């Protein structure tokens, strides 16, 4: 019983910051503090008229979409190799691919910055961010897809081949439909991570910032903070929706493959 109380208090601790977001987003005051001073939707309206924000959102969406596609593609290769094949140095190779999961993000950021700017002498653009985001999102994609691939009976594809399908069409007709929920979940998670990522994007963004970089700029100006709260509210709502879809799909995938659910994403 006391454990349950503790856990609920812990959840309140976890949710406290995001719970405040909508409160201040609808609060009619430029200062983000109590007491509140009545409701308004003007901060949301202001977002629609801020040109710079629109560009930032466009950049972030482009980066997030590309990241989700590429990291999921790489994730499928790694998860399939990991679940279905034995090959030399497997543990080392898989560990190396998963390494960005525990590497401090600033290390990824500065090392890529050096390569791109100092060594290759290229300009920074959305693509430099995409390259870095794919690197850090691929381990998450693999973690999600691993669940999907490992639950797959390896004789399933063999059965399809035995019934006349080629190796590729066996994958397309049997494996792909079974891991599809995992693929979509992986794309959604990678999208969410990329959309939110700041530490690396701050180092690698070119002249036109991403949304988190833009927000970082706003945080220094007190008068723009309510707009940040409004933007944050929308982002949180969007994240929750996307994650819920990802979770529902992941569970449906588990049910479809006929396995019992063992828990969350990681």
């Amino acid at each position, binding site marked *: 019983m006391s454990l349950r109380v503790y856990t609920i208090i812990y959840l309140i601790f976890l949710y406290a910051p995001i719970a405040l977001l909508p409160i201040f987003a609808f609060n009619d005051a430029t200062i983000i503090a109590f007491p509140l001073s009545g409701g308004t939707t003007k901060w949301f309206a202001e977002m629609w008229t801020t040109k710079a924000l629109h560009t930032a959102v466009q950049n972030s969406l482009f980066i997030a979409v590309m990241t989700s596609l590429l990291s999921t593609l790489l994730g499928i290769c790694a998860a399939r190799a990991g679940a279905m094949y034995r090959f*030399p140095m497997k543990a080392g190779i898989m560990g190396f691919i998963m390494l960005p999961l525990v590497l401090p993000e*600033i290390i990824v950021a500065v090392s890529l910055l050096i390569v791109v700017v100092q060594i290759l002498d290229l300009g920074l653009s959305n693509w430099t961010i995409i390259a870095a985001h794919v690197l850090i999102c691929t381990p998450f994609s693999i973690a999600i897809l691993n669940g999907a691939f490992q639950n797959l009976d390896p004789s399933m594809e063999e059965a399809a081949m035995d019934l006349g399908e080629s190796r590729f069409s066996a994958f397309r007709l049997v494996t792909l439909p079974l891991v599809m929920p995992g693929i979509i979940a992986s794309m959604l998670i990678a999208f969410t991570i990329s959309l939110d990522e*700041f530490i690396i994007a701050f180092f690698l963004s070119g002249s036109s910032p991403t949304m988190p970089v833009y927000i970082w700029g706003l945080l220094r100006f007190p008068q723009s903070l309510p707009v940040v709260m409004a933007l944050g509210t929308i982002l949180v709502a969007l994240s929750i929706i996307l994650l819920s879809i990802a979770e529902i799909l992941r569970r449906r995938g588990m049910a479809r493959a006929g396995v019992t659910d063992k828990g969350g994403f990681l």
Partner: protein
Amino acid sequence: MTSTEGGRGLLMVSPPLIYALALLAVPLGAILLFSFWTQDFMAVDTTFTLNNYREIAEKPIYWALLKRSLFVAGCVTVVTVILAFPVAYFVSFHVRADRKSLWLFLITIPFWTSYLIRVFLWKVILGYNGVVNTGLINIGLIEEPLTFILYNVNAVIITLAHAFAPFAILPIFVALEKIDRSLLEAAQDLGESRAMTFFRVTLPLAMPGVVAAVLIVFIPTIGDYVTPELMGGAGGKLIANMIQTQFLALNNAPLGAALAIVAMVSVSAISLAFVLLNRRWLKGRS
């Protein structure tokens, strides 16, 4: 090549492997190389030198920052893991099987929502006119707002402990889930109380998860400069802030690279030592 299982596996794993080699191994090599070079005004002097490392060793500011960073990361890790363990235990042992993934989902959601804004909101919670202070004044517990909870190391620790919570809960949960429940019944059958069963059976078997949680919180914490920047004030800056400054403000990439290497090596050394100290719990499991 494609006819054997090993060949097919290698072929399959090669795209992500090549990607990780090109965008992780090569850049890490580059940063190491850079740390032995020097910044000569606008150009980079490529003569091999240990000057950057000498400067880091000689100037007390770097040493102080590194020490503070490791201290903060250590505190964050301890706080996060200790706070997380009961939650993981509750979900694993006291939640109905079909509800577990819902609880995990609830726990992970805040983690996925805009990091920057989350950090900023802690400022709102802990600030002079923040939620905590207004709340405590309203119920009459204090008369003046508390000031020791913002713009110092405490604030950094609270915020980071919040940010890394799910990272600590999930590995511990996974380890607890793996424990065969009949082992606990066996321990009680052999005469142990519930508390002693926890210490003699549950905790040792959960140690791989605890070790994973410690590493997964400790290592990335070093790389964060957002939280110290927003929450730390003047006395709460960490090594990552200095790396960022060297690269982006002072335009001294080689010194920044050397700092990054020093930070990474210290973290890896501590993590390795930690794993070795705990290796008796990790044998034959994981």
